[in-house]
């Protein structure tokens, strides 16, 4: 497995809770797309002869890019890299920025999976978190995608939104599930420092549901999704059978991926496990490509023990857990042998269990995933 990620750091407007690298100013978009295409070429020459099994175009809002520009980008990607037959190719879209023409361009360029950011079916809540669309626009985008022929659609939901009730969250799940997307992601809102929402909460202008309410939403949401046929396969991800997101599973298996674009991250085996990331400053990113250089701003060789911890940290997010055979093949020892004390402690707490195939967190362990991982970190 190997993945390709392309970052489109532009949005119509930045959401109140967002701390990803993205800009509401579309001014450098054209320059950025040219640079990105250049980076695609440079990167492909640097790492030839790998077939990629997944592609993910994320953002920002990739659907802000015009049909023509996206077609060009996809074409550049396909001509530079070997994309495996049957590869999963996802693009993130925001309702209100998608139209039939864009969808046609995506399909022509090989996109076969759409990820729609809805967050909530309540218009009031959408406004409160600074989304640019209402529920009707989402329905319209969803309908267009289906009409265009997309057969694999994800819808992103959020809980723990300012003023959100448990009832509202469950009703959003029901409304969305009735449309029948293949995949639903349900994330709890994380208040990130420096975001407008953070300021508002700090200033007492907005209140978030308390910890218990958020926990109730998560528990009830999880039960309802299961009831509606969506199987939980990762902490925040649910899918109909066969539709789990392969691109993300590759991350969680600590597999190799190349990230292209502003602030994108990459990981790959190059004389040991290595991670690197691109410039997060637009000017630095553009300037590097202007000089025909890869826009890498830092890179690190990951020591063996840390690579091992990464495999656990990421693998335990999935319900199937860390695959013992894959772990043994990679490190030459069994995962339970590598962390005897942590494993024993988690067993005692009822947070983890080992099967012949995997080490995985139980339902209780998944709820306490963060605490559970601390046991795997050396003192």
């Amino acid at each position, binding site marked *: 497995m190997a993945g390709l*990620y392309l970052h489109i750091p532009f949005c119509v407007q930045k959401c109140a809770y967002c701390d*990803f690298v993205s800009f509401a100013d579309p001014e450098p978009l054209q320059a950025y797309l040219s640079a990105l295409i250049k980076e695609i070429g440079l990167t492909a020459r640097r790492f030839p002869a790998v077939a990629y099994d997944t592609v993910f175009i*994320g953002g920002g809002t990739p659907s802000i890019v015009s049909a023509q520009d996206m077609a060009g980008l996809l074409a550049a990607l396909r001509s530079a890299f070997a994309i495996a037959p049957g590869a999963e190719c996802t693009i993130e879209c925001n309702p209100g920025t998608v139209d039939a023409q864009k969808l046609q361009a995506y399909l022509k360029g090989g996109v076969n999976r759409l990820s729609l950011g809805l967050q909530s079916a309540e218009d009031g809540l959408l406004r409160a978190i600074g989304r640019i669309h209402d529920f009707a626009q989402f329905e319209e985008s969803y309908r267009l995608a289906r009409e265009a022929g997309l057969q694999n659609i994800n819808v992103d939901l959020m809980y723990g939104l300012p003023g959100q009730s448990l009832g509202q969250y469950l009703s959003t799940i029901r409304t969305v599930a009735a449309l029948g997307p293949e995949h639903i992601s349900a*994330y*709890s809102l*994380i208040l990130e420092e420096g975001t407008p929402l953070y300021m508002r909460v700090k200033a007492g202008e907005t209140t978030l549901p308390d*910890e*218990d309410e*958020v*926990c109730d939403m*998560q528990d009830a949401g999880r039960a309802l999704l299961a009831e509606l046929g969506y199987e939980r396969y990762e*902490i*925040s991800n649910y899918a109909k059978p066969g539709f789990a997101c392969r691109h*993300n599973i590759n*991350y*969680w298996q600590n597999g190799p*991926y190349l*990230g292209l674009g502003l602030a*994108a*991250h*990459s*990981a790959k085996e190059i004389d040991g496990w290595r*991670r690197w*990331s691109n410039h997060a400053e637009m000017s630095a990113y553009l300037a590097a490509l202007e000089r025909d250089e890869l826009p890498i701003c830092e890179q*690190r060789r990951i020591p063996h023990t*840390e690579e091992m*911890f*990464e495999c656990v*940290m*990421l693998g335990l*997010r999935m319900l199937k857990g860390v695959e013992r055979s894959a772990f043994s093949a990679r490190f030459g020892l069994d995962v339970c042998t590598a962390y005897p004390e942590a494993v024993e402690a988690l067993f005692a707490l009822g947070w983890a269990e080992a099967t012949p195939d995997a080490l995985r967190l139980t339902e209780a362990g*998944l*709820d*306490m*995933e*963060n*605490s559970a*991982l*601390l046991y795997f*970190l050396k*003192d």
Partner: protein
Amino acid sequence: MAYQRELIRNFCIIAHIDHGKSTLADRMMELTETVSARDMENQLLDTMEIERERGITIKASAVRMFYTHTDGKRYMLNLIDTPGHVDFTYEVSRALAACEGAILVVDATQGIEAQTLANVYLALDNNLEIVPVVNKIDLPSAQPEFVIKEIEDVIGLPAEDAPLISAKNGTNVAAVLGQVVEMVPAPQGDESAPLQALIFDSIYDNYKGALSYVRVKNGVVRAGMRIRSMATKNEFDVTEVGVFTPNLKPTDSLSAGEVGYIAASIKSVAETKVGDTITDAEKPAKEALPGYKHANPMVFCGIYPADGADYESLRDALAKLVLNDASLTYEAETSLALGFGFRCGFLGLLHMEIIQERLEREFDLDLVTTAPSVIYRVVKTDGTELVIDNPSNLPPATEIQTMEEPMVEAHIIAPSEYVGTIMELCQERRGIFIDMTYLEETRVNLKYNLPLNEIIYDFFDQLKSRSRGYASFDYELKEYRKSDLVRLDFLLNGDMCDALSTIVHKDRAYAKGRAVAEKLQEVIPRQQFEVPIQAAIGTKVIARETVRALRKDVLAKCYGGDISRKKKLLEKQKEGKKRMRQVGTVSVPSDAFMSVLRIN
């Protein structure tokens, strides 16, 4: 050859923090070419980093300058620096006792402050000639005529001839030196009499051992002599005597009237105590110079390493600090909550803060400190008397007949508009109003008797915030007084946390118990089970809060390919976990112990 005594002037500078003492000292040293401006670090006399940052002088130091006056004669001026804070009153009094005069520096924009006043009275008690100086006349808000009137009205000193100076710009500094020569009397003394040298400071030198800074009152001291400290009875062989240029410069001898240092391979400053008299062991003086006092710590607290593994480093650091600070005491203690640490004694609050800061800064230690305590006197029902500086050692209430707490007399000088709010604060802290006098139309001097245990937390901070920084404050220990005191304990999930116990007045126990319990509820993170927090007096619970159980602890969001962000987050949490203390079953962050000190 000893310097002609009538050409010697020994003096110090009295000033409030920030009124320009160190700057004035710098200018004097430049003017007398004691140090060249080029060589000069700013504020040379303050050698410790913290002193420089806080703009205060902690340890006294000294410097010898030569100045040619308008009469054509060359005078030796010995400037003895004094610490500027209430905690060091005794040290100040000994430095003053080494002088014949004092320059009183008053800020032309601020006027006289409480500590200045206290030190001026101390100087007058020591029969010092006071040379008033008005500083900062370069500032647009300077009101020298008001300040002169204030000096005359409040202290009763004629000040019409006080030099108006700007130490910062060097304006009129020569006039100050001139007045020192003219107004401060030359030292008295008898060179042929048996040696009497007053120790006004002592510092530890890595090569020479503890050095005694002395003012020779009678006789002569030179290398090779056997000397005796009259209070401690220790005897030493003098290896070197010398003067401050301001660096240490060996000389043949120090004679009556002179100021300098004595090195005698002394192991720690505890053996050469401030205020003690050094005499000739072969031909001792009949009596010691007056005024020696053993400086007892008044405020105590437990100091623990945030990471238990740093215990040895903390012990080494304290051992190094006491080499240079005879008023700091420490002894090993253990706390159920905090593990191994030390009970430390300090002269006062600032002293405590300075030591904590030095430990953290100079020795790179992370500390947990317990609530400060004063010394209580306890008479048990069986008649035995106890002295308690740690609440944990207080016997059960049923065994206590009476308890006494230390009282201080506090002077607070503030603009009159803040009198109401300051009096309110003093009342809240069980203060007893004594007196209020107007220093001028808009400034008052408030006198209160206050229990020391009410001012050791945040009294000064409160005073500052309630007076927008204008109030100044000074106190001295007055007496012990019978008081209705109880020990307030805190229980976490049923287990008592000894590090949180405090002794409080009965009438304040409920409010304090509630406030601390609420604060603990905020600072103790949710655990995997519910944690009841109880405030109790004996077995009686007076307040209760609950930290609810943690239901979920999961990072729902996945930051795309940015794995390092999550790894860093986890590493930070792991680090935080290491700094948690175990109280019974409950994990308590180290900061929690400190944050409960800052409740109001």
